[in-house]
């Protein structure tokens, strides 16, 4: 599944798409950045409700394919701008983490 396809599946708002054709290899869920940093697999979709600027640093370090902000959490314009600069795929869905992941797994 590509990032674009995942975004469609989650009726997501594409806050920034740097590479929509990037393949999503697997997924990871978590909000505690110290955990996510050490554990999120490369090329995964990272499901979180965190929206502070550090999610971008963590996304860069882990090389996740896309950050999926769940529960419609508010993402500041400055963070979207930074995601553009850093070419990080960032999407936002109204689904909660559990149901977002369920939709993803049902399709894979």
């Amino acid at each position, binding site marked *: 599944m590509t990032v674009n396809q995942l975004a469609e599946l989650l009726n997501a708002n594409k806050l920034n798409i740097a590479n929509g054709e990037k393949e999503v290899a697997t997924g990871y869920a978590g*909000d*505690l*950045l*110290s*955990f*996510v*940093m*050490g554990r999120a697999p*490369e090329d995964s979709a990272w499901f979180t409700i*965190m929206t*502070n*600027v*550090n*999610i971008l*640093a*963590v996304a*860069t*370090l*882990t090389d996740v394919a896309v950050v999926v902000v769940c529960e419609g959490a508010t993402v500041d314009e400055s963070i979207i701008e*930074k995601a553009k600069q850093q070419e990080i795929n960032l999407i936002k869905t109204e689904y909660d983490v559990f149901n977002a992941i369920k939709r993803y797994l049902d399709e894979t």
Partner: protein
Amino acid sequence: MEKIHLEFDVDGRNFVSAGTATAKVKACLKEMGINPDDVKRVAIAMYEGEINMVIHANGGKALVDIYVDKVVVKLIDTGKGIADINLAMKPGYSTASDDIRQLGFGAGMGLPNMKKHSDECIVESEVGKGTTVTLITNLH
């Protein structure tokens, strides 16, 4: 190969720029063709260190030396120091504020993560003077 030396200033209390030094080191190691697993370990340990300096010590300096067989990251701050290093190394122990916790940090994973993701993690600290953390990662 001669060793490569990199130096960065880490800006205290600035969460927006936190991780900049680590991202640069990661890009540099990647470009050098170093094993991705090793690159990741260096990056995780260093990022935790950088975040610690931002949270607890008003920033500091990050010195990175890349050798053929290892990467040495030295994180030097002149912050308030660590009173009990053994306690600070304990997973889950944290002195971070609620503000910090809301950012997804301060869970007491910083130093334990640095230890876990390096081959040698040396913490030297003096209360009131500052802390130096040296992280050595062997390259494979």
